[in-house]
């Protein structure tokens, strides 16, 4: 069984230390790890689900723009990162598990290995700060 590149492993170890939701995907967008705060967002436990194919986990979120209109997947930071391997950041809303609109900020970045290869991507969710 081939192990992940150490850049992926170290990102997981970092995510494991953080109090903000972190999602780590492979280059195809399959969810290969999410930390405990992300479990609350997904309503699932990583220990229970293990890795999740992109088709499965991407439908959990119902992203809306700030006007409340549904967002196309290609507008999401992580999807853009997976597409062109650049970092992105955007404010939008998701429907929480309780059915409420929840404003969030999402940051995504590509994991470019020491060898210069694109090996995965990370999405971090932040609470939007009230101005």
């Amino acid at each position, binding site marked *: 069984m081939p192990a992940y590149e150490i850049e992926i492993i170290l990102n997981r170890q970092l995510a494991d230390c953080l109090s903000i939701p972190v999602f780590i995907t492979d280059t195809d967008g399959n969810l290969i790890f999410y930390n405990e705060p992300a479990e609350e967002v997904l309503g699932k436990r990583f220990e229970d689900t293990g890795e999740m194919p992109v088709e499965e986990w991407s439908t959990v979120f119902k992203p809306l723009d700030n006007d409340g209109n549904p967002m196309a997947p290609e507008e999401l930071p992580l999807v853009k990162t997976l597409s062109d391997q650049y970092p992105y950041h955007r404010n939008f809303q998701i429907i929480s598990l309780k059915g409420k609109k929840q404003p969030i900020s999402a940051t995504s970045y590509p994991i470019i290995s*020491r060898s210069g290869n694109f090996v995965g991507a990370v999405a971090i969710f932040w609470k939007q700060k009230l101005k």
Partner: protein
Amino acid sequence: METKIKMKVKLWGVRGSIPTSGPDTEKYGGNTSCASVVYDDHLLVLDGGTGIRQCGGAYPASKRIDILLTHLHLDHIQGLGFFSPLFDPSKEVHIWGPASSSQSLFSRISRYLSPPLFPVLLRDVPCKLELHEVSNSVFDIGPFRIQSSYIIHPGPTVGYRVMRENFVFTYIPDHEPALGSHGMIQNPKWVSGYDLAEGADILLHDAQYTKEEYPIRRGWGHSSIEDAGLFASITSAKHTLFAHHDPSHSDAFLEEMLASFKLSSDVSVALAMEGFEAELA
């Protein structure tokens, strides 16, 4: 009757960080990291710590020598300038080492092998010298197939899996696979170095610290003896040699560490010892 040629492994230096000579370290040795793997006249040298000096004269029949560096911390290259084949015009020496995203391998080794730290420039050594950069690579050297992979240790660092027919020697002297808030993730896909060590006949692995020493040295790139044992267990290595002995650990202390470890583990392990030899056939 035809005699079968054997792959032979020898350890020339198993001390971590800095050479330590003296009566307290006489048994396991004070030279820093170096091992050799020989098959017929084909010689691989793993790391260029101070142990490499004695290795240099041990295989006069080998015209080509390949030195595989795990990384360029001083205890892994300190002996290079005293490796006699580098100064022999009849020898062909190939140095393999981890690629960096910024400087070439030649440039990085030359920072040590140049004045004021060393009198001879790397480019002036008389042997036929070639440098090769590796990353997550598989390549052949003579009768050996080599796999290298980046592993968790500060700076560009690889471990090596040396294969010949069905026999495997894995060399990971500096490694901190348990770096993180909850230690090692006990799933092979998430273990740094797993591919290198899986099912190895002999695994040489970092076990520098006791579990009491490790927490205050977390992030320095080394393992506790318990984490080294866990790594050996996860990778199903057949026999493991604990190495990179801390310079402050005497022979007696190392044996106490091992005895204590064995109380709670049944993996096949021993302390790496300078002069240790094994035949894989």
